[in-house]
């Protein structure tokens, strides 16, 4: 099953036919043998294996500079893939419906809500999470500014806030307090640290450092 941009992904009509054939044929085999419990269990296990092969989809992507070649169920969101499969739990699940911004990550440099897309849709993409922002032990300037300005209380929204804040400056949408507030509106902070978050962004923006 070739899997790259030049080829259609698995799950095309050919695969579909093969999949239902395999499921039916293993069932027919089991029925024909009038099997005992052991054989039934083996058939069930086979079915599961068949299902696993066809229901998971190969996925290649890069996360924080590390290349991954995995297979995932299509239902897995990018957020769940990062947290559950790669154990990168810095990215937070807040609402899980695109309403809070806690799950914000960068895909090919653009900030997105990782809860609202499936991981398989990111074949070949480069993902950056909060874990990929610092340079070794040296914090990213935005992380330092959040610490300095107390840009959080409970901290749950903070990874999303910081990823969004970095993108906000890169996009050139941090020229005034009003603009920052508008372009950061996709990140909700229920502790209400907004004024300190704005201050942190203004400091980084004003410092003129490359973010």
């Amino acid at each position, binding site marked *: 099953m070739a899997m790259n941009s030049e080829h*259609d*992904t698995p799950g095309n009509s050919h695969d579909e036919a093969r999949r239902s054939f395999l499921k039916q044929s293993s069932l027919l085999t089991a029925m024909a043998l009038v099997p005992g419990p052991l054989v039934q269990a083996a058939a069930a296990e086979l079915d599961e294996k068949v299902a696993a092969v066809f229901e998971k989809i190969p996925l290649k992507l890069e996360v924080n500079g590390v290349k991954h070649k995995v297979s995932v169920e299509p*239902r897995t969101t990018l957020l769940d893939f990062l947290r559950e499969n790669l154990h990168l739990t810095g990215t937070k699940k807040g609402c899980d419906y695109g309403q809070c911004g806690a799950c914000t990550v960068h895909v090919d440099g653009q*900030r*997105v809500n990782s809860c*609202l897309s499936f991981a398989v*849709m990111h074949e070949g993409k480069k993902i950056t999470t909060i874990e990929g922002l610092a340079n070794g032990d040296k914090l990213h300037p935005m992380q330092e500014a959040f610490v300095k300005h107390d840009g959080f209380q409970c901290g749950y929204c903070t990874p999303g806030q910081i990823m969004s804040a970095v993108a906000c400056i890169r996009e050139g*949408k941090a020229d005034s307090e009003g603009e920052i507030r508008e372009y950061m509106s996709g990140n909700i902070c229920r502790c209400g640290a907004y004024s300190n978050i704005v201050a942190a962004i203004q400091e980084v923006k004003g410092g003129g450092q490359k973010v």
Partner: protein
Amino acid sequence: MNQFQYVRPTKQQAAIDAVAKDATATFIAGGTNLVDLMKRGVMTPQKLVDINRLPLTRIDADPGKLRIGALALNSTVADDKQVRARQPLLALALNAGASAQLRNMATVGGNMLQRTRCSYFYDTTMPCNKREPGTGCGALEGINRMHAIFGFSDKCIAVHPSDMSVALVALDATVQVSGPKGNRSIPFAELHRLPGDMPQKDTTLEPGELITAVDVPDGPFTKHVHYQKVRERASYAFALLSVAAALDLDSNNNIKAARLAMGGVAHKPWRLTAAEQALVGKPATEESFRQAAAIAMQGAKAFKHNAYKLKLGPNTIIQALKTAASVA
């Protein structure tokens, strides 16, 4: 979430075939609405046809029109120099919608096809003729603050949620569609439909039809435009009501041409042609705007909780026109 099969064709025809031949299949582009609806069990497609590998992201600045690819991102379109110069109303409406993150995911085609945000549509324990035809409308006698004042039926009083669509209907856009029977063009005003007896059908698209682009014709509305959106917080919320206004003024500040459309009031973006006609030849004054707003609201009817829209509507029209006229 239900299990589904995932395919990612690289050819447009393969994508169309995949959906046309399977009633349980649906296209996915940005996913910002569909994934949300699938998580809640409101939509349960058995097959997702990911169209992100199709070459439909371009914005072509053609003579006389902009052709915006269906897969162009909302953020890309809103920041595009040609769009900002030739169709500033569209850029304003796009930036009024959602958040920066969502605009980085949402496509132009997906934006216009987003489903209503009616809470009865979203809540699978509630009756909803749009989600499950024949079960009734929960909003009719329920909490209907957000609901329609124009064009509703006794089957559905939901509103279309897109901001972008309000600008596109005002700007006389045309939707380019490709389907099992070939290509066709749909005037934007005819893309979305009123609920009538079939609220489950949001648009006039046929099964398997794929939006490939939207054409926005050049016009005189490059300066005096405004998108006024009223919502319950300053940003990142759906409209209670919105108005797209565009004016072409002569040197004496008289109105040569006008465009007006409302969002948050009907099952489709609501073009106000009678009010537009009433503005032509009038001076760009609050009095002219007030008269046009009165015409625009003719036939509006409120439910128990949305009577405020009968006042908010004309006030927002007047404010949008005043702001558009005063753009220096």
